C-alpha cells in the first residue's frame, strides 16, 4: 500500500477532506473509539492483513497507523 491510499482511506472514514500523516486521530481528527476500531477493520478487510489487538492502544497518529500496516503488508 502507499501513503496516499492510507490518507484517503482515513479521510473517508472520518469525513475529513484533508488528513496529514502527523495528525492525531482523536485530538486532531475527532475520531472516537469506534472509529479507530472501524478504521483498523476496514484496513484489515481492504489489505487482507491483521493488526494485532494489543497494538491498537499505541496508534495515536496516522503515521503510527501506517507503521502498523507497512511491515505486515510487505510493501511500502
Amino acid at each position, binding site marked *: 500500500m502507499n501513503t496516499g*491510499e492510507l490518507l484517503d482511506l482515513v479521510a473517508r472514514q472520518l469525513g*475529513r*477532506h484533508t488528513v496529514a500523516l502527523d495528525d492525531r486521530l482523536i485530538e486532531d481528527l475527532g*475520531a472516537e473509539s469506534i472509529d479507530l476500531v472501524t478504521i483498523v477493520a476496514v484496513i484489515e*478487510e481492504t489489505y487482507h492483513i491483521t493488526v494485532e*489487538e494489543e497494538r491498537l*492502544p499505541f496508534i495515536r497518529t496516522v503515521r503510527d497507523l501506517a507503521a502498523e500496516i507497512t511491515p505486515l503488508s510487505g510493501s511500502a
Partner: protein
Amino acid sequence: MSAPVAAASVAELLARTARRHPDRPAIITDGRAWTYRELQQAARLAAHGLQRAGLAEADRVVIALPNDAAFLITFFGALIAGAVAVPVFPGAAPERLLAMSRLADASVVVVTAGTAATLPWPPARSGPAVLTPADLETGGSPRPAADDVSRPCYIQFTSGSTADPRGVVLSHRNLLANIAQMTDAMDITPDDVFVSWLPTYHDMGLTLMALTPFSLGARLVLLPTDLRDVAGWLRAIDAHRGTFTAGPDFAYRLCLRNERVRGRFDLSSLQACMNAAEPVRAATLSGFEEAFGLRHVMMTGYGLAEATLSVTCTGRGQPIDVDERGVVCLGRPMPGTTVKIIGPNNVPVPAGQPGEIVVGGPSTCAGYHGNQAASSALAWRDGYVRTGDLGYLDPSGRLYFTARRKDVINVAGRTIYPQEVEQVAEMVSGVRLAVAVGIDRGGVEGEQLYVFAEARAAGTASGSEMQALTVEITRAVHHNLGLKPRSTLLLHPRRMPMTDNGKLRRAALRDAFTDGSLAYGTGIVFPPALTS
C-alpha cells in the same frame, strides 16, 4: 423492593425525592455534585425561564444539550412548566435542529451557547425562541401547571426523516409505569450508584439511567457520551463505587478489545450491567465478567421507545441462559407488561415458535407525533404495539430476540431508520440517490452503517472528485446524525436494486454486497479495491 407510590407526574417524582432526600447527591457530573434540593431548585428556575420566553402548557421544548446537569435541569424545567420535552442529538447541524424543531412544532429550543452562536434563527417572529442554559439560571417561581398523567411528557424521536418522522409520544403515565416496572424488575434501590455515559437525549440514558434513580433518591454519575476512551467509564465505576451501569453490547466488547483497561480497574462494586439496545453476544457476557473478576452482574433486556423503554429483562444477580443456537435470553416481561409472538396471520403462535414481537402494557405509546399513518400501522390490537422485531418465547415466557425489524439499522445500540440517513446523504450536492443499510461483518464493531450512493456525475468523475464526494457524504451523515458510516460507496448508474414500481430494495443491496456479487468493478466505482 417495592415500586414507588404513584406520582401525579414525572415532575412530581423529582419534587417528591427532593422533599424526602434534599441533601442526597442526585447528579455527579463534570466535577460537581448536585443534591436533590439543588436539582429541584434549578429545575424550577428553568421552568420559570421557559415561561418567561413564552412557553405555555403543552408546548414542545426541543432540548439539544450534551450529557450534563443542564440537560436534566432543562428537561425537568420543561415538565414543571407543563410542557413536553423533545430531546434531540446536541451535535446536529443548525439546519437539522431547525428541521427537528419544525417536526415537533416547538415553541422553544434550548441549545448550548456555542450552538446558539451558529444558528441562523429565529427567523423574524415565526420561529421558536432560542435559549441557552444560562438564560434559565435566574428568575423566580414558575406558574404551576396542572398534573394530568395522560398528557404527553416527552417525545422521543427515533427518526427525524421529514417524509416519515417517528416522534414517539410518551405520556406521564407511560413514564411513571415504566420507571416503576424497571425499579421492580431490576431490583433498583436508593442505595444504587448509577454510572452512565449513555446519551440523555435517548431513551435508555434518560429513562433508565436518570429518571429511575431520581425517582428513588439514588445517585447518578453522569459522563460525557463519547466513547473516545472506554477507560473513562470504567474509571468512574471504580472511583464512585458504581453499582449499576448500562450500555449496548458494543461498549462491553470495546472494553475487552482494549488491553489498556482489561483488569486495570476495580469494578467489584458493580452489581448490575445492563446490556441492551443491540444484539447481545454470549461471548461478551462471559468475557466481560471474566476480564474484571465479576459474577452474574450482566443483565440483558429488550425494549423500544414505543414501549417507553424496557419490555423485558433478566434478573439482577441471575445467570443468563443461551439457547442451543447461541441466542441470548432477554428475560421476562416487566410486571404488568405482556409480550406476545404473532405469526404472519397476526395471530399469536405457541411458545417456541418464532414470529413478530408485540408488546402490551402501561408503558406502550399511543403513536407518533404528527404521523397518523405510522401510528395506525404501529397498533396490533388495542394497547399493543407491533415491534417489527422477530423472536420467540420459551415455555416459561422468557423472550429470545432473533432478528430486527426490516431495514432498521442498529449501530452501537442506536436504532436508525435508513430513510433518515438517505435523506441527509441525498442533500449532498452531486448525490442523485443514496441507500443506507446495516451490515454486521462479525467484527468487534458489530453492525455498521453502509451508505451506497449514486453520483450525478457517475462515470465521468475523477478519483479525487469521488473521494471528495465520499468524504462529504460521511461528513454530512456525521454532522446531522452523530454517527459515521462504516463505508460510503459510490455505485455505477442504475445499479441500485429497485422493485418494479421503483421502490428501493435495501435487503437485496445488502445481500449483494455481503455475498460479494456487488464489489469494486461489478457495480462499485469508488473507493477502488486496494491490494497490498
